[in-house]
């Protein structure tokens, strides 16, 4: 049957529920499309998805694995959220993650705290160093943008590669463990506590890898929420993001905020790197991130820059990663991730335009001529 599609720019605001509805709708449609692809390649989508669910959320142990994966995602998702709120396009969370991990490792590799220090002294110092490392990696593009108006998209992207190669250099040349591309395993004092560590007291926890980093991520979520929505700094970030000219007019120092927000964003990504090496890998090695920094961009976007939504989306994505490990072909989870992102970005269109369908007969109704704005010139 013939019908005509008409797309109009929305003049009024979309209804309040629409942004959330389109996000959820986008995820649902992404799963439907993935299901169609699965059917085409000869799979059974229902079975695959129920397996996905089982693998990611089906048991306490599975949930624990999912939350382990969600932990770095929450932190990089928050890192991107903070920067994106100011329309600062930090796509360098990946690099900031690596430098954060590198700086945190220095604490035990140099060492900065003497061997035999207590766990909390070691971990506390590593948190500080991880955040300093990430902040430093955020400072470079922030300063370049504030001072010389260098496009931060380019610099943050390029710095990712430098960070990864920098990391590789040290684990190959200096701290290589018996020729492998990794440092020796850290002293236990540098391990974040895990649920499994308490298996003797609570048998239920045995084998659960969920580590203290998840708690850190949740605490940071609340702090980021408070900064963005309650603090004076958050007000400045919001104002600069909405209208930099108005911010300048209000006496806000935009250059200073560009540097500070990039550093804060970098520090959060650096903390993610620290959490990953102290909570999961327990050493500095190659490929500690399978692209968390880039997934963080997707997560921030999908969460509409809301810190609490970042946690939920991160858990969904963590589940996808966990399930993806257990299924063949292994790229399936990434395929779904990609489709979700594509759908979410496409759904933005619906927020700005109104789409209506017409039957063939109605199609010829002319659009109302637009009234030109009263122009005084």
């Amino acid at each position: 049957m013939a019908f005509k599609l008409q797309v109009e720019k929305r003049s009024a605001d979309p209804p309040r529920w629409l942004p959330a509805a389109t996000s959820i709708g986008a995820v649902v449609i992404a799963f439907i499309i993935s299901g169609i692809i699965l059917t085409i390649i000869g799979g059974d989508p229902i079975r695959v998805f129920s397996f996905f669910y089982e693998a990611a959320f089906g048991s306490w142990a599975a949930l624990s694995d999912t939350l382990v994966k969600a932990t770095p995602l929450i932190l990089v998702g928050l890192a991107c959220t903070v920067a994106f709120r100011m329309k600062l396009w930090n796509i360098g969370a990946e690099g900031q993650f690596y430098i954060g991990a590198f700086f945190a490792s220095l604490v035990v590799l140099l060492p900065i705290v003497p061997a035999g220090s207590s766990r909390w002294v070691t971990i506390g110092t590593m948190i500080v160093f991880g955040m300093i490392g990430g902040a430093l990696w955020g400072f470079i593009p922030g300063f370049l943008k504030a001072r010389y108006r260098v496009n931060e998209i380019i610099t943050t992207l390029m710095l990712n590669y430098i960070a990864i190669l920098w990391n590789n250099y040290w684990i190959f040349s200096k701290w290589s463990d018996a020729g492998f591309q990794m440092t020796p395993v850290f002293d236990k004092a540098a391990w974040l506590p895990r649920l499994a560590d308490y298996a003797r007291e609570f048998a239920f926890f045995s084998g659960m890898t969920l580590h203290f980093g998840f708690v850190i991520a949740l605490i940071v979520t609340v702090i980021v929420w408070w900064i963005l929505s309650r603090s004076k700094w958050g007000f400045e970030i919001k104002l600069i993001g909405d209208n930099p000219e108005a911010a300048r007019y209000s006496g806000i120092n935009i250059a200073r905020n560009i540097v500070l927000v990039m550093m804060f964003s970098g520090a959060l990504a650096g903390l993610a790197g620290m959490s990953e090496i102290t909570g999961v890998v327990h050493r500095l090695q190659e490929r500690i991130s399978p692209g968390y920094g880039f997934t963080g961009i997707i997560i921030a976007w999908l969460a509409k820059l809301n810190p609490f939504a970042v946690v939920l989306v991160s858990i969904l994505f963590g589940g996808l990663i966990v399930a993806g490990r257990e299924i063949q072909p292994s790229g399936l989870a990434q395929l779904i991730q990609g489709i979700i992102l594509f759908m979410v970005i496409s759904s933005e269109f619906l927020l700005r335009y109104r789409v209506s369908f017409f039957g063939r007969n109605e199609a010829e109704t002319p659009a109302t001529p637009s009234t030109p704005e009263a122009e005084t010139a």
Partner: protein
Amino acid sequence: MSTSTNAPPPDYRVLAVDMSNIVIRFPGVLANDHVNLTLKQGEIHALLGENGAGKSTLMNVLSGLYKQTSGTIKVYGEKVDFNSPRDAIAKGIGMVHQHFMLVPTQTATENILLGLKEPRFFLNLSRYDKAIRELQEQFGLYVDTASKVWQLSVGEQQRVEILKTLYRGANILILDEPTAVLAPQEIDELMNTMRALVAQGKSIIFISHKLHEVEQVADRVTVLRKGVVTAEGIPMGNMTKKDLAQLMVGRDVVFAVKKEVREPGPVVLSIKNVSATNNKGVAALRGVSLDVRAGEIVGVAGVAGNGQSELAEVITGMRECTGSITVNGVEVANKPPRISIGHGVSHVPEDRTHVGSAPNMTITENVIMKAYREEPIGNRWSVNYPLAHDNAEELKEQYDVLAPSVDTMARKLSGGNLQKVILAREISAEPRLMVAVQPTRGLDVGAIEAIQTLLLAQRDAGTAILLVSEELEELMALSDRIAVIYDGVIQGIVDPEHTGVSEIGLLMTGQVSKEGG
């Protein structure tokens, strides 16, 4: 599309354009009220008027961008009905807009051909170069057509625009304030071009608000004031500049608001020998000195673009300058806006949507845009949003802001209500000095009166106010003194009680200058 340049020879008996009884109505605005305009073949017809008088709107109708509400347009005697600029071009009408419509990264030739049906697929540009070169020689519009547009000077870009319209076969050219962007020698070249064009039978409508240029080049003049014709096609020889100035700015000053006589207090704002450049790097202020005292409104009169916007910006720290600006004895020139805000300077900016407010933030957030730093709204680290909300509600009531609630986004407010929000913010800061730029522009009568009353109340409360406005009536009604600015220089400071509109009009158009006042 034709590349013909063969207009009939100049013949004043032929009417190239005959617009009669044109009414253009936008929602809430009558932009043109029964306007008549005739353009004889081979003449330069000046369309004179202040900003907002309706000149551009009228020309946008003639060039097919808008449609008139009523009235008829004849081109060479034939009644026309344009639905798009394409229709107007087909009848030989071409408009050169004030803001050029060129693609900077493409060459002049490419820009001239852009949007035409030819060349279709293969860009054999040299084929077209010849035709363009002929046009250039015919009218003296020399420009290197192989250069990219961004490499050309503003004057050359304008020539590309004119070539573009000629190449499309225009016989009737509309030049919208073509001199506004040009340097003096470029203006002379443009005038020569215009004379060359009419000598070969083209007809030109020249939009301007600069009297000496009109006098220099135009054959006849039509003056618009607030959408109404105040002089219809008068030959230039019959008009003095003084007549024109008066026709342009009007003579009847209606005092809508009453002003009490007050003795002003000590000097609050002192500007000494301040110079600054505009965004294009051209001198906008040249050695300006001015004092504003407590409890006095000093008006700044001038046609737009003569430095008044820049004057407001250097005071509020939004623009760099040379010279000295003190507020209560403290130097604020070349300090960030934060400093002037800290010393009690309020600023009602010219552009209320792009500078004065944040569109996607609420009324509450817009009200605390400056106050969020200090007690009681700002604590050490946080913003007291519940208090801000209550304050905003009080201000909304007090300033009669029409909006569903203080959580309404700024972009949903009408111009008048947005301006009231801005004034609420700026006045509630209890300023010592208030710099208000075009505070009533584009607002309806009710809002204008409300805002004027607020400004006078501030003056009576002892605030020093610098009021920049293009509305002479407003300045006459509100100001204790009026500084008239032209081309970045204060031409004179006059007492509105004892000065006529025509005298101010002459100062505004740079015809005379007056010392002291």
